């Protein structure tokens, strides 16, 4: 009886209506996921500064837009703020010898205060009615022109960033970063300054995270000092979902690296779609972070358990 009442209370249309919003969010967080991919997969550096630099990007973008700055320019500066955050983590690690995870946590904690200082309080709104925002939740539920605007903007950002990253990691400097992440000893033996490469990759990564934060703050109409909490987990989830679902498919393709980056963005979209289904199922929203952690744990465990099974001959 209870079950019946539960199912009859679910509205399929509501789920359908939630989808566009989830896709837009997935695209915006996809930029963060690209940043996480650079550090976690290419550099082999678990960078936790992301939680801080995401909010920094949001805070910088919102505060600048509130001074009537062009939102596109504000996004560029949000990217720059993220780059600076990455620089700090990189220097803590390479110049002061602080282990990667700790270096990231220190930056993240420091950014909490910095973000409060940027905003002057714990959150700041930026109204879509007052400013010509690049993206907004309002556009998603608005008329067709608004819908087209928000989705083309999001997709444009993702495609441009994938192209830029595909180009960059195909250059001499990009190769050097990949070698640094894969085998630092080999990299140094080939004359690569591994410290410089690490710092550069962290700057690029956090720049993308800052950009993602700047877009997301506009999307939800406010920057909040806590908006980045758990961002690293969502980023990791996207990277891993993309890899587990599309990894094999991408390998065989001509531009495998570009496809892998697109897979990461798809991972992010899927994450938000699943999230919207779970919310639609009336899963308590307080438990969403718990759910995120479980999803990431499961997807991280899959490759490990698969290998283990192979190693023991299927037993």
């Amino acid at each position, binding site marked *: 009886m209870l079950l019946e009442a539960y199912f009859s209370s679910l509205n399929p249309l509501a789920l359908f209506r939630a989808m566009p919003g989830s896709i837009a969010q997935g695209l915006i967080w996809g930029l963060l996921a690209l940043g996480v991919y650079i550090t976690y997969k290419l550099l082999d550096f678990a960078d936790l500064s992301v939680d801080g630099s995401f909010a920094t990007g949001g805070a910088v973008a919102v505060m600048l837009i509130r001074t009537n700055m062009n939102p596109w320019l504000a996004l560029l500066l949000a990217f720059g703020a993220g780059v600076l955050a990455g620089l700090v983590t990189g220097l803590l690690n390479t110049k002061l010898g602080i282990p990667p995870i700790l270096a990231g946590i220190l930056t993240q904690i420091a950014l909490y205060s910095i973000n409060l200082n940027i905003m002057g309080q714990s959150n700041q709104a930026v109204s879509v009615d007052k400013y010509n925002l690049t993206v907004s939740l309002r556009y998603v539920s608005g008329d067709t022109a608004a819908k087209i605007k928000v989705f083309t903007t999001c997709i444009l950002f993702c495609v441009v960033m994938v192209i830029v990253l595909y180009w960059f990691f195909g250059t001499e*400097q990009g190769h050097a970063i990949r070698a640094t992440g894969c085998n630092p000893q080999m990299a140094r033996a*080939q004359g690569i300054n591994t410290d410089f490469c690490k710092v550069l990759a962290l700057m690029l990564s956090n720049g993308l995270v800052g950009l993602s934060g700047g877009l997301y703050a506009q999307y939800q109409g406010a920057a909040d000092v806590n908006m980045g909490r758990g961002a690293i987990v969502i980023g990791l989830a996207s990277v891993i979902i993309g890899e587990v679902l599309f990894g094999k498919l991408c390998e065989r393709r001509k531009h495998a690296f570009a496809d892998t980056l697109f897979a990461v963005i798809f991972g992010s979209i899927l994450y938000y779609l699943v999230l919207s289904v779970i919310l639609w199922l009336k899963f308590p929203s307080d438990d969403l972070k718990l759910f995120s952690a479980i999803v990431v744990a499961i997807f991280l465990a899959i490759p490990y358990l698969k290998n283990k099974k192979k190693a023991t001959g299927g037993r």
Partner: protein
Amino acid sequence: MGEMLKIENIRKVFNAGTINEKVALDGVNLTLEEGEFVTVIGGNGAGKSTTLNAVAGVWPVDSGRIFIGGDDVTKLSEHKRAKYLGRVFQDPMTGTATTMSIEENMAIAARRGKSRGLSWGITKGEREKYREMLKTLDLGLEDRLTSKVGLLSGGQRQAITLLMASIEKPKLLLLDEHTAALDPKTAAKVLEISDKIISENHLTAMMVTHNMKDAIAHGNRLIMMHEGKVILNIAGEEKKKLTVSDLLAQFERVSGEEFASDKALLS
């Protein structure tokens, strides 16, 4: 002919001031002329690999000086010294980036000692050059330019690492027991390739080995190390006539003790 390598009285102590203190290099002196190919033998902990690492700048030495091709490199960091050196390591995993393709690995090596900018990491012309180079290995790798190095066997990786070390002619080639992790047949093949690359490019080289026969059969000079010092130096005609039993007798005479390492006696 000039001096390619000059090591002046270098010392290195690991874990100084602790109960694990170990004098790894205790005043090593060595000069290599251009074109010399020296094999380095000695028991475990004699300082063979440590000497190579000191030359490569893996860590700074405590005292002494190192010159490569006349330049004082003592204070240079590892990546800055790389332009002088080609290096192949004991572990086949160490010399290559496994998640990158064969051609990408070679392209990285071709840019050793040059500044890396935003031009393409590999060009079409390079690809053809690498294909030709790989052909000379006779391992069928010329058709696998875009294969990930992680898919290759240990012997194939060492062969590629050797090519990488010689793409840009180094002032000095450092081979650190680079066949120790391979099966005998593969080890022989890799040694053959090493000889070929060294003679064709007229390289100056140092090869550390545990295998006395290899040390005698390869190169034109042999040094033996013991407790962080060079204790024996044999070159020219004298080296050509050398046998394993000579070497053991020499070792006992110089060091005043029996050669303890079983590994050095094997094969």
